[in-house]
């Protein structure tokens, strides 16, 4: 008995070593050089974790787009292939292993998750090897030189950049005749902060007045305090950029206090999965890529949504469009680079994008901004928990933050 307990440690250890060793036996592919070989898109994403609601729809849309493009003969006679790897709730070790494994399988372009912090291990694995790294829906200017310096030339996102979004929100507010605004900043994410900062700057440029600036953070348990304080400052519109639990807490918090002032949110506030029945969500606006409520003005977008529904993954926010747009954008870049899939060649083309038409509309990049700007945002209003397209808005100015 004593003997077994004493040797128990060793036995377990041996087991652990065997288990770890077993992992060692994996494959390593070789990069495709033949022009007729398919173009491999390595897609490292979060399939079942926190980011899954963003990553899964983008991948689903990309897959449909790839199928459509391949049906028309592919790109420069080469088919597109998507190889995926699950980063498992964006565990940094797994994410890095995923990226290396996908590159080992000959990936020409690496796609990554929709949050730049979670994406970093994957992005670095790609750009360190001269491979283009693309995110379908990162919304900050961080996916590019701003975060990754010189190597960041190879990093792009097809999400809308927060500055552009905040500016569009300000324009929309001004156009509605809302002259005073109260700001609630969720300090958790750079994206959240930048949207509100951009609104702040652009709104004042247009002649608006900011009556109150409050901040709160996901996880800090202080959204109620921010709501209470905003409520005591009368404004024509309240502005925030948030999702997660703070979104319903913010909106229903204000409404519960009897405050009926319009609230405007960024893409973070897209969807109706979060709406509360009591009090119902009213007079709430947000800007997004596409309306998933059946009334998007673009026919191709509507048919993409139909295709996604048919594929069993109906989108709950407009963010899926980033996945489809990214495929279109990449295809255009490859064509303009005469079939090259080299990171530097593609990046050189992407930074020249000026109102280039993709599935969701026209998009632009610049040498500084590797995240989309200039999109025609869909403004959606939720009233009595029903979402409806209200109009389109495009930012005229991108404020420098």
């Amino acid at each position, binding site marked *: 008995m004593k003997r077994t307990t004493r040797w128990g440690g060793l036995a377990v250890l041996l087991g652990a070593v065997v288990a770890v060793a077993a992992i060692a036996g994996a494959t390593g592919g070789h990069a495709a050089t033949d022009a007729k070989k398919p173009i491999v898109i390595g897609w490292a994403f979060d399939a*079942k*974790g*926190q980011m*899954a*609601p963003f990553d*899964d*729809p983008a991948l689903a849309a990309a897959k449909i787009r790839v199928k459509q493009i391949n049906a028309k003969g592919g790109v420069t006679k080469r088919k597109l292939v998507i190889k995926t790897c699950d980063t498992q*709730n964006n565990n940094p070790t797994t994410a890095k292993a995923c990226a290396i494994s996908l590159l080992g399988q000959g990936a020409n372009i690496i796609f990554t998750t929709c949050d730049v912090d979670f994406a970093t291990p994957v992005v670095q694995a790609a750009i360190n090897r001269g491979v283009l790294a693309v995110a379908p829906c990162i919304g900050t200017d961080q996916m590019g030189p701003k975060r990754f310096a010189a190597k960041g030339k190879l990093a792009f996102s097809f999400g809308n950049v927060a500055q552009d979004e905040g500016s569009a929100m300000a324009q929309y507010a001004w156009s509605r005749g809302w002259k005073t605004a109260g700001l609630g900043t969720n*300090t958790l994410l750079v994206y959240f902060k930048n949207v509100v900062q951009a609104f702040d700057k652009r709104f004042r440029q247009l002649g608006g007045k900011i009556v109150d*600036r*409050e*901040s*709160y*953070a996901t*996880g*800090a*348990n*202080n*959204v*109620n*305090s921010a709501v*209470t*304080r905003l*409520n*005591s*400052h009368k404004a024509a519109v309240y502005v925030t950029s948030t999702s*997660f*639990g703070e*979104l*319903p*807490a913010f909106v*229903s*918090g204000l409404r*519960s*206090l*009897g405050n009926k002032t319009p609230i405007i949110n960024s893409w973070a506030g897209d*969807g109706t*999965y*979060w*709406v*509360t*029945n*009591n*009090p119902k969500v009213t007079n709430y606006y947000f800007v997004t890529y596409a309306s998933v409520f059946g009334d998007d003005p673009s026919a191709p977008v509507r048919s993409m949504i139909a295709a996604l529904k048919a594929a069993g*993954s*109906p989108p*709950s926010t407009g963010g899926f469009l980033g996945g489809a747009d990214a495929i279109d954008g990449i295809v255009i870049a490859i064509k303009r680079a005469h079939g090259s899939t080299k990171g530097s060649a593609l990046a050189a083309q992407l930074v020249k994008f000026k109102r280039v038409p993709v599935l969701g509309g026209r998009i632009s990049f610049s040498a500084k901004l590797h995240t989309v700007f200039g999109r025609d945002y869909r403004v959606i209003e939720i009233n009595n928990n029903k979402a409806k397209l209200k109009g389109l808005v495009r930012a005229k100015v991108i404020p420098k933050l």
Partner: protein
Amino acid sequence: MSTIASVDLQTLGDAFGQGAIYALMAVGIGLVFGVLRLVNFAYGQLIMAGAYTLAYTSGWPVAASIVSCFAVVVTLSLAMDRLVFRPLRGSSPAVMLVTTFAVSFFLQALALIIDLRDGTLGQIASSVAPLNQAVSVGGVDVRKVTFVAVGVAVGALVALALVLARTTIGLHTRAAASDFRTARLLGVRANRVIAFAVVVSGLLAGAVAVLLTVQNPFVQPDFALEDTIIVLVGVVVGGIDRLWTATLGGFAIGFVSVLVNAALPTDKTVFLPSVVYALVIVVLLLRPAGLFAWGRRAAVERV
């Protein structure tokens, strides 16, 4: 001038509401600690399970939804005791604590899988949301939940105090919390006392689930995790050895957090955790046995 005054009253209301909810959690944690000497880190996941139950039953009549919330939480609480706490009885405090970490992660990971089935993360529990509406008190809007939270907390604490003081099971529980070995020598049934503590702590978790979803109707796997950590801190700061000091500690940390948050300039609220935890350190250094543990020496060498 009037704005400032009204903000202060509102803030005070928020502070009382937060403090009341944390006091309830503190009792739930303190009660189990009392009889088992186990710091249950997984307490938040009981609340999370209750909140998910409220979310998934939000189509039901409110009463049915709340009853099922309590049923799920109490069942889970008993299951936790049976499957985890009981085999661990007598283990070192560090082992018990770390095992409850594992239980907590297990339940969160499970919730993530269940939640994500519909492609979105988070579920809305809004059956009790009307409680979040405001009533005007002297020109100041105060949320109903503040009164309900304070009312439930005071009611639950008074009821518990009466049970502990007047009933046999209450007497036995107090004896077990003070000296379990002697209590057993006198014939006090350990399993019955522990079951009582576990059930009451589950009921409190159920009540907290209802109150927390009023303020934050969006339920995610990490629901109440942050709150649990803060309450655990508060409980130790107050004095975990006794139920009343633990409860006061829970109340105090909730109350103080809201006030500090309100006192900080907007652009400095991001440093709220630093301020609160610096206070925690100061209090612990000055009164290691607990802020409210008058006349007790710091002889608690348990973990």
